[in-house]
């Protein structure tokens, strides 16, 4: 029994040491959401692509429920979702875009399939993008992609 415990302990110590060495050599595990720019749906964009754009060229739009936007929305983002009245939320977006024009709008929601970011992006694109000269994109992976990046 004693030798079994010693063997088990040794195994645990060796495993921990191997893990630590891997961490030091290879680095922390990659928790980023995978995103292939070549296979994205129309108007969708990978976070890695967005990171190559100038930050001041982007207005982030949070299409999640208000409580979640208040909890961990992107700094400087505007709330435009399909849970509240469109006419109550749209003015703040428009004031942001007209007061400080940006070339790009990136909309994100909670998860793949929630549909909110796609809907909000379509509405903004159809109503205002042509006149105000901006592009509207949907962030692939939504808030999960941003959280995985540690932002």
């Amino acid at each position, binding site marked *: 029994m004693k030798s079994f415990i010693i063997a088990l302990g040794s195994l645990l110590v060796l495993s921990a040491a191997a893990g630590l060495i891997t961490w030091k050599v290879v680095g922390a595990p990659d928790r980023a959401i995978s995103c292939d720019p070549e296979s*994205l749906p129309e108007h969708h964009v990978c976070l890695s692509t967005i990171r190559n754009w100038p930050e001041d060229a982007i207005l982030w739009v949070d299409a999640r429920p208000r409580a979640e936007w208040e909890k961990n929305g992107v700094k400087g983002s505007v709330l435009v979702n399909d849970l*509240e*009245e469109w006419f109550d939320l749209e*003015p703040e977006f428009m004031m942001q875009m*007209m007061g400080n024009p940006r070339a790009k709008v990136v909309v994100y929601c909670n998860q793949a399939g929630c549909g909110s970011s796609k809907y909000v992006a379509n509405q903004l694109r159809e109503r205002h993008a042509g006149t105000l*000269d901006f592009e509207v994109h949907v962030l692939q992976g939504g808030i999960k992609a941003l959280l995985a990046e540690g932002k």
Partner: protein
Amino acid sequence: MSLSAKMVFETKLVVIEANPDEIFVTGEFPFEVTGDGETIISYDALCSCLAGRVEPLLPDRSAKLNWKAGEKGVIKARFDTSRFLGTVDKAIELKLEGEKDPIHLIVRVNVPELVQLKPSTLKWDKGSEAKEKVIKVKINHTEPIKILSHAGNNEKSYPYELKTIKEGWEYEIRVKPTDTSQSGIGMISLRTDSKIGKFKRATAYVTTKPKLKMKPLTEARE
């Protein structure tokens, strides 16, 4: 027919053309169970605007989750259109026992826009000629919708005139900024006599702004 484990759906996408005054519409996804039967773990709507239901119900009115081979049923998705305009996709996420990936049953609803502003935004480039521009207001309905009142929040810089072309059907908002040498923004709000909540209000936007110096980037797929 799309095969998903042992639950075979006739379609996973239902397209509905909603009537303007229709608040709730329902998409139906008929299915047949094959093989050894199927167990539904969950069927969740990914939006509070959507409610899923598996039919037929059990005698006690609860959802039938265990299905035998050869049985037929339907998943119904009841969609609340009250906050939406244009085309909207919402999904029911169906998880089946032993299946790693969920099935998404998509309801695509086209909700008509009864009070249409074209364009909904007017823009003048900073320093350009302060020419009059026009927003056309068109009623896309079988009954007239009248504009009851209107107001601008920056009439000093963006004086406007609401012109009735055909009462209840067609209007124009004519805007001529007083000065385009400075950036500016404004809103023009309309109130209508529509019986449908989301068409009781409409908003137009006006702005004067410098031309963007940076050309929009196009890395994302368009």
